[in-house]
């Protein structure tokens, strides 16, 4: 009860019942500070503590020879999706949270339009990824988990075999995707329902689609996912800007990574980049 009271803001319903209405908005700052703290800790760790990662050499020279100079990493469609989604996400976060921190403007229309763009881009992505991409490449697999264990053991100074190189996406990348999928789906699903409560050209406004309690929980979920996204995106940007990952960031613009980078970090067995 007390924990919930700290995270959730409640209101008295017309029937005099206490119902949640949304998250406590100080959570915006908690998320932002949390995100910041993570990346500071990470930066310090990488700078001062982390040891150079050793990998199992996996690529056979024959295989490596077949790798082209520039390895195609993201198709144009995937890149377009990513940036449209990013734009929509920024628009959503800005329109959602600026009014909460004191900057007032007519935000609702922009917010739901950006929400629709995001929804559309994600629907596109799901379809695109299901039929035109290697659908499973982004989800953590058995090897990822095993390697994560190995890395942990080695980092804590215990004996363990060297982890293997990554497939297309590093384990962190996959985990990030998984988290953002969960947060994104939560925010989108709740958001689409919430459009029923504002005036849009699509349907009659009807806040009574659900009961007060259901709506309240939905708003809370939307809010939690929303502030979660603040932290997630902060972390995302941080990694995108980190020098050792910048190659990947560039690939999100130009579509390819250099051969050397590919060979150093990825396992051609697991991510075939041969012609």
């Amino acid at each position, binding site marked *: 009860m007390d924990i919930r009271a700290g995270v959730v803001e409640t209101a008295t319903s*017309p029937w*005099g019942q206490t119902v949640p*209405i949304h998250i406590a908005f100080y959570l915006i700052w908690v998320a932002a500070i949390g995100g910041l703290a993570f990346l500071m800790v990470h930066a310090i760790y990488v700078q001062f503590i982390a040891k150079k990662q050793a990998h199992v050499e996996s690529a056979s020279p024959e295989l490596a020879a077949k790798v082209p100079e520039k390895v195609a990493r993201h198709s144009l469609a995937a890149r377009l999706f990513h940036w449209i989604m990013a734009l929509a996400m920024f628009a959503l976060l800005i329109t959602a949270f600026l009014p909460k921190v004191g900057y007032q*403007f007519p935000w609702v229309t922009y917010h739901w339009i950006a929400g629709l763009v995001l929804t559309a881009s994600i629907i596109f992505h799901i379809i695109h990824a299901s039929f035109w991409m290697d659908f499973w490449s982004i989800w953590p697999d058995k090897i990822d988990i095993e390697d994560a264990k190995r890395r942990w053991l080695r980092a804590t100074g215990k004996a363990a075999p060297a982890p293997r190189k990554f497939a297309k996406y590093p384990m962190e990348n996959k985990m990030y995707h998984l988290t953002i999928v969960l947060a994104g789906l939560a925010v989108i699903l709740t958001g689409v329902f919430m459009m029923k*409560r504002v*005036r849009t050209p699509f349907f009659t*406004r009807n806040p009574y689609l659900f009961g007060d309690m259901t*709506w309240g929980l939905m708003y809370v979920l939307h809010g939690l996912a929303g502030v979660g996204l603040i932290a997630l995106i902060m972390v995302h940007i941080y990694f995108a800007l980190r020098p050792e990952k910048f190659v990947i960031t560039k690939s999100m613009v130009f579509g390819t990574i250099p051969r050397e980078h590919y060979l150093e970090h990825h396992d051609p067995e697991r991510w075939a980049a041969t012609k």
Partner: protein
Amino acid sequence: MAIVRDIMPAFELFQPATVDDALRLADKYGKDAWVMAGGLDTFDWLKDRIKRPKVVIDLSQVAELRGVREVSGGLEIGAMTTLTEVVRHPVVREKFSILSTGAEAAASPQIRNQGTIGGNVSQDARCWYYRGGWKCYRAGGNICFADTPTAINREHAILNADRCVAVNPSDSAPALIALEAQMVIRNTHGERVVNAEDYFIGPSIDITRMTVLKPGDLLTAIRIPATWAGAQFYFEKVRDRQVWDFPLMNVASAMVVTGGNIERIRIVVNAAAAHPLRLTAVEDAVRGKPRNAATGEMGGKIAIAGAEPLRYNGYKIPLMRNLVKRAISGVEEAQWT
């Protein structure tokens, strides 16, 4: 917690005698303070135990906020001047009669004897859901109870609604906007002056406030320039009962007519949106046109462009059209034989 009404909860009371003292108190207590002018809006909130300020700053003893002064052809009206004092002031009656008519249309004689011009323009929305203590957007919640498929919303907005569909209920506000009045706002950091039409804000900007006033701000005076002194005025308020009731809609216009043509005009409608609407499109369209029924009808049609009725307030569209028409070309009086 069980809900109980009608008994005011405890608060600490301050009755400062100067604006500076009032501002210091407002600054000191910030969001915990409630600034009270005549108290007619205040007591509803307090008696319903919906708003619970820790501190009430009663401005009734601040003499410098009260009174009407003549300033270079115009007027400066202290924010704590009662509506009755405004209505009875000879210069207001003579040069700016639209304001005396508008202020006199508000509420009831006793309310006007105590209610202030500052309070009248700064009063909160009267949506019955919001005032009933329902936790709506305006009350910090996440719903508008007045804009649902089953809500009863005959008194709500047809224009500029953004989630919240409450309207501004002031009768003096449209008159002040028509007169190009300016609002003098002070806080401990200094004084700022905003145009009357910018004093009011809609839900898209801030769904919990009706005006630009923030905690610590005090509306100290309203300045009326000489610009419209002695112009042709029209004010009409349509309400259910002739006393006490807030407007279903009101209209105010100030006009200078030369040679039968409208030379200058300002026209404002209230209770159609969450803030008084100055109809600049109408003003632009009728400026230079002859002041007659055809111009009035044209103005009326322009006024209602984009109006979106709710389930029970569709009548506000013809009402606004007709009131704007009348504010431009006057009423065709009955000639009973």
